[in-house]
């Protein structure tokens, strides 16, 4: 699909609860990026959370109203685009399990209708829009962490690194043991905090070994975990969502905020 065709497609943005409350700039980056590529985007305001935190902790019953809310909010869109591999996986795979357990055949049908059209950002760009060069400019040394759900549940493969490889000015360096989990894992990060931190610390060490200025991934939740460790270590390495890098242009260079890898600063009281 080229950008001409993209104009007629109804795209609903699924911003995810973490992005909504904690990382709204990533949502804004997705809007900016997709508009730049000629895609009309809508944000269905009825959306909340995909329910993954409940499902992955075993609270299936509690997730039923959330799944119901999700399919209501996103019914009728050609594509539901999400800046999260993990929440895409939840909508595509877990919603069916929750719906079946609810015993409501209407919900099962609604999920079957919506779930296949939920796509992660890099899938939408590469597979639906057919673009790899999104016209981004980001003059920094970057390393990429393939989050587990993007990698294994969705199988996004090399789509994100192909997109990053086409960003002007960006130098992509390989992350050692890239495919190993960072240890976030939703409530795993607090239920098994010690193990989670041990895994995250190893990930942070590998990031440091690359000498990159910025760590990029497709899930802000994983980045919050790794970034929280890097920040505690005063590493000076910034973490950024893939969308934030792809949305960057020459106009952003020199600005602070999304575009540049501003370092963690020590500020005196």
């Amino acid at each position: 699909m080229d950008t001409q065709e993209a104009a007629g497609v109804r795209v609903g943005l699924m911003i995810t609860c973490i992005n909504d409350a904690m990382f709204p700039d990533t949502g804004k980056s997705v809007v900016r990026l997709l508009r730049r590529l000629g895609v009309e985007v809508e944000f269905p305001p009825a959306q909340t959370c995909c329910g993954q935190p409940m499902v992955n902790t075993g609270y299936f019953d509690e997730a039923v109203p959330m799944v119901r809310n999700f399919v209501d909010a996103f019914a009728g869109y050609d594509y539901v685009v999400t800046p999260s591999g993990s929440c895409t996986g939840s909508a595509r795979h877990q919603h069916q399990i929750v719906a079946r357990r609810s015993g409501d055949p209407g919900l099962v049908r609604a999920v079957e209708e919506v779930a296949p059209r939920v796509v992660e950002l890099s899938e939408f760009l590469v597979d639906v829009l057919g673009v790899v060069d999104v016209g981004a400019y980001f003059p920094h040394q970057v390393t990429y962490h393939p989050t587990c759900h993007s990698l294994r549940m969705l199988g996004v493969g090399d789509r994100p690194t192909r997109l990053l490889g086409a960003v002007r000015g960006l130098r992509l360096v390989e992350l050692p043991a890239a495919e190993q989990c960072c240890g976030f894992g939703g409530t795993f990060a607090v239920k098994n905090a010690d193990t989670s931190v041990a895994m995250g610390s190893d990930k942070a060490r590998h990031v440091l070994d690359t000498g990159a200025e910025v760590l990029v991934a497709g899930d802000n939740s994983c980045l919050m975990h790794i970034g929280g460790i890097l920040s505690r270590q005063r590493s000076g390495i910034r973490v950024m969502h893939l969308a934030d890098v792809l949305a960057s242009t020459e106009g952003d260079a020199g600005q602070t905020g999304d575009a540049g890898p501003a370092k963690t600063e020590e500020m005196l009281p």
Partner: protein
Amino acid sequence: MSATFVGMPAFPEAARRALENTQQRHNLAHATGTIRDKRAAVVAEVDDWEALRLAGAAIKDQTLRHLDDHLVALEAALQERGATVHWARDAEEACRIVADVARAHDVDEVVKVKSMATQEIGLNEALEAEGISAWETDLAELIVQLGDDLPSHILVPAIHRNRSEIREIFRSAMGEVGRPAPDPLSDDPADLAGAARLHLREKFLRARMAVSGANFAVAETGTLVVVESEGNGRMCLTLPEVLVSVVGIEKVVPTWQDLEVFLQLLPRSSTGERMNPYTSTWTGAVPGDGPQEVHVVLLDNGRTRALADEMGRQALRCIRCSACLNVCPVYERTGGHAYGSVYPGPIGAILNPLLKGTGVDEQTDSLPYASSLCGACFEACPVRIDIPSVLVELRGQVVDAHRGGVPKPEAVAMRGAGWVLSSSARTARSERAAAFAGRLLNRLPGGRRQGDRRVLGSIPMPGAGSAWSQARDVPVPATESFRDWWSRTDGGEDES
């Protein structure tokens, strides 16, 4: 061996203790990394690996669906060839059957082929209580037994030990139970293996009874199969007069043709070898050749419970290769003891609750949560057990088992979050409260920032906040949520 998993704390606590052992963490990272690379290389050589995985899964599923028929066929074939078949509902029954055979032959020691089923039922301890010594002959099991230790891996039970630790165990413990280690003894692997060989030879030549498990049981001929790397199992299976094999009921395969698939999947997945060095098969008792009395104990011990679990029954496909352990980032850091069972790692995290049931004890209930759900185990499993999905299903069973009483703080929090997040109006309100807090926190003087965002260090409060912030900075909430930005700026169109 007096060490026991009984009384092991729940996973988070056991893991915390394990993580403090830096030598063990180093040993585990090195060993799992080495096996992981070996496995990846030999699996990549096989063009039809995915087809083999699918075949392995299909054979096991089909067999499990008609397990009763296949077991009856196995029993008949075994009896026809002179073996005595026993059925054991649980560990206690199985141990009693083995002890009775030993007493009938008046033996006070047995040699053992490495076997997970006998570990599972605590056979060595049960025999010890009857005054019968059980000697492990697998090198790694011997290290664990002599070290008064517990196994921490399915295939390499002493994976958490390095060679200098093994040298010390041999020097201090071998003499107490048999032939002492040669003096001097270096920590060279060949030297250590030599010491074990001399120590074990004495036991092989003396023992009149052996105990084994089986990797597979072929129903059509009543043949049991053991695959191994050292040949010590073969010594046990051929030298003694009496052989007792404890076999989980899920080990049955209908035909020799089915076996072909697993003999390709197992060695590459487990030891990273194209073929295992020794494959022993035996069918009943053969006059004048090998053990003259052969007993087979068909063990349930929770397997029919697992079989009744629609999602969980796929765990019974497991061929105990331990590929999931070697790729698991949680296992790599905590080791096997933290799982409190002879079945550690991702497969243990599902198999133990399936065999024992959920809602029964805290330790077992903690196991489905001992995973970040990264999915590496599913990818590596040669019989395609979808471990992450079973983990999530079992978490649901754990939660459901605790519904009804006084709710745990977690359940209260989940219900509250579920209530807020099932309505966009409630979500927006709670986000506005968070954004307000974010603005306040951002305005406070001092502190550290990442970009334009303030980050919080350690938060001294009970529960999730301090669990998160003990080693991770926390970004304060954004000062305006995306949804509020969207409505304020008409989707960014009015942004100045």
